């Protein structure tokens, strides 16, 4: 299969070697540990609690149901008691509505989800969301409104530092593959492609062996960030361009992350709801690790399991360094989309001295969506939303390539994120007026 590639993108330092060779360890649950489950861990409506305070719950038991079609159910990660339904720390919102469960028993079994209804209903019941970070509810993607001819499984893991997808591919390749084949068969999709970046040669070797048996095509991907961006991956592997403002189904493709494929496998064949995941804990910790942890575990527990901080921590990022969120507190819990924890010390931080934009054009060359960040940034500063819309800021995938390369350290992507929200609001209001 030819490789088409995409324009733009960057080559950051990948820094994956401190965890890529380390088998996943399980973080044990201790009696008395508390687990914090925000009701909004996914894109879409928040989940609605279905359990009450002081109620005893079992691992895998439903504690909050999906708040709509685009929403995801939440299950208890442990056997324990609900100690409160109030506010928990959330990286994006500061604090938000959530359920706190205290473990009173350690166990490895779980309450299976019922196998009634359609494939999509089972996946929805298991609370599966995209595991790559965007956390879009998976059953929605599995209900395409159009004909799909290709299922693309994303094993790019192009974010620096993160190795959790790499480990899943090495340790549970058949879960990934069988999960993918399952989706392909259930949705009647013709082609299955698995894309893995070339910096994971061991995973590529391993998957090659299964290609014929399971009927998929393996595409080794050129190493470039954001190779794993949905639109970039589709362009690279299939040379199809998803139109602006549209989803991949528009060009007959759905994309799932390798972790999601494995989760789909577990939900369907093992009836396992999504109550744990693998998290790469790295950066300035004593022993960086890949950890299998229960949802809702405060990140401090993960850092302690890695021997604690190395030196004085200055910044903690949830997710990868390119798109992850800096958190304010070590109480922030692991959620469905938490792929990594990266700790920075003062000395690990890049030089962030700001200068005025010198119009060097680096951001323009780096943007994988072919936008003009330097010019858009001027409109951001002046809150000129109409101009921003005309410069297609809504097409921005928030990959951060522009800010990464900017020698003047302009807050490019940060401004675009905020502006996009404003513009969406303006468009909504416009629609309301016209209706």
């Amino acid at each position: 299969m030819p490789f088409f590639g995409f324009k733009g993108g960057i080559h950051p330092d990948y820094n994956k070697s401190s965890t890529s060779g380390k088998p996943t360890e399980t973080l044990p649950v201790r009696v008395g540990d508390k687990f914090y489950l925000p009701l909004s861990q996914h894109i879409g409506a928040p989940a609605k609690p279905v359990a009450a305070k002081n109620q005893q719950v079992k691992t895998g038991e439903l504690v909050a149901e999906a708040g709509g079609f685009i929403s995801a159910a939440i299950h208890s990660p442990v056997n324990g008691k609900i100690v409160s339904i109030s506010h928990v720390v959330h990286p994006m919102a500061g604090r938000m509505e959530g359920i706190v469960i205290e473990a009173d028993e350690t166990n490895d079994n779980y309450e299976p989800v019922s196998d009634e209804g359609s494939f999509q209903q089972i996946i929805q019941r298991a609370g599966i969301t995209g595991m790559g970070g965007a956390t879009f509810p998976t059953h929605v993607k599995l209900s395409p409104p159009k004909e799909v001819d290709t299922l693309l499984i994303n094993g790019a893991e192009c974010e620096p530092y993160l190795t959790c997808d790499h480990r899943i591919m090495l340790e549970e390749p058949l879960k990934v593959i069988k999960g993918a084949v399952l989706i392909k068969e259930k949705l009647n999709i013709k082609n299955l492609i698995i894309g893995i970046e070339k910096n994971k040669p061991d995973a590529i070797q391993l998957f090659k062996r299964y290609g014929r048996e399971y009927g998929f095509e393996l595409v080794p991907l050129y190493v470039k960030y954001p190779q794993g961006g949905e639109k970039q991956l589709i362009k690279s592997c299939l040379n199809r361009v998803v139109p602006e403002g549209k989803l991949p189904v528009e060009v007959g493709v759905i994309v799932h992350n390798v972790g999601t494929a494995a989760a789909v496998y577990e939900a369907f064949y093992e009836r396992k709801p999504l109550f744990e995941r693998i998290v790469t804990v790295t950066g300035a910790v004593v022993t960086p690790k890949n950890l299998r942890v229960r949802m809702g575990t405060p990140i401090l527990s993960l850092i302690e399991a890695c021997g604690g901080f190395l030196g004085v921590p200055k910044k903690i990022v949830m997710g990868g360094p390119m798109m992850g969120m800096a958190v304010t507190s070590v109480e922030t819990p692991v959620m469905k989309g938490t792929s990594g924890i990266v700790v920075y010390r003062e000395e690990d931080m890049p030089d962030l001295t700001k200068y005025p934009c010198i119009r060097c054009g680096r951001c323009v060359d780096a943007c994988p969506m072919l936008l003009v960040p330097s010019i858009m940034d001027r409109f951001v500063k002046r809150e000129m939303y109409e101009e921003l819309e005309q410069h297609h800021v809504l097409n921005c995938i928030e990959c951060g390539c522009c800010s990464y390369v900017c020698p003047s350290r302009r807050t490019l992507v940060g401004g675009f994120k905020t502006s996009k929200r404003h513009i969406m609001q303006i468009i909504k209001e416009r629609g309301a007026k016209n209706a």
Partner: protein
Amino acid sequence: MPDRKFLVTFSPHDRHPETTNKVMMTVIIAMLPIIANSIWYYGYYAVKGYVLTALFCVGFEYLFDKISGRPIAIKDNSALLTGLLLAMNMPAAAPWWTMLVGSFVAIVVSKQVYGGLGQNPFNPALVARVFLLIAWPVEMTSWVRPSPVIHGFLFDTVSSATPLGTLKSDLIAHGHVVTANLATYTDQLIGNVSGCMGGDGAIFVLIGGLFMMNRKIISWHIPVSFLGTLFVFTGIIWLINPQRTIDPFLHIISGGAMLAAFFMATDYVTSPVIKRAQIVFGIGCGLIAGVIRIYGSYPEGTGFAVLIMNAFVPLLDKYMRPLSFGEVKK
């Protein structure tokens, strides 16, 4: 453990190591061969010129920031860069006060009043050069004959016309090129001809330019389209009538064309950010320079050409914006 306060910033959390002050420093390093070459040929005058313009430019930057209450920006190295570029665009024997006035025009009039670094539409060093050329045409066209340092540090000046100046006066006087008066390729390449301090010595400019390309400071788009167009345009005229002008190769290595193409036209602030717009920009520069050299009354046209194209940069960036990924043409 008590909850510490952690730093919260927008993503991304890692950055490319290149920073603006380093970029400027790399350009300055790229200029070293040119500076060394001018000191070789102009001795004391070159040293004086570079030191004075650098001091004046950095000084004005500092003073203006201080007076207007802006953060002191001299650390970004851009004023130093402007100063050195200005010296390269002046005759070696230009009096010190032209350097003072030139630095004022470059830093204060053409940069700071527009809002400082990144805001100026025109290349500051070129604005200063053109201003001086108009205000003090005599001082700005009193050229010194180069004399290698090994023959003693140059103190006494022997005036001499530039090769392109001679060409122009020959054309006016005789109506054709006087071959005997032309500079040799070698002299032109190594800078052994009179002219602006940094404009000749095409080899050294090229070394600096290639160094900047190697360090990914500039791309090929502007220099290649600029020099390519100048070459083709003057080449056509020359092929039609070899008596009308010098050969195209001599054109691109003469009179600061190289310096303009690699160091002036590529100035980030005053050139397009979009690659294909840069090509159009370069073609425009080459064409205007060629037209001025052949049909204009000035022997040299690259500085004017760059300034004129500077004015089109906002339009080029606006109308040559590529379609974004998946954008549907309306």
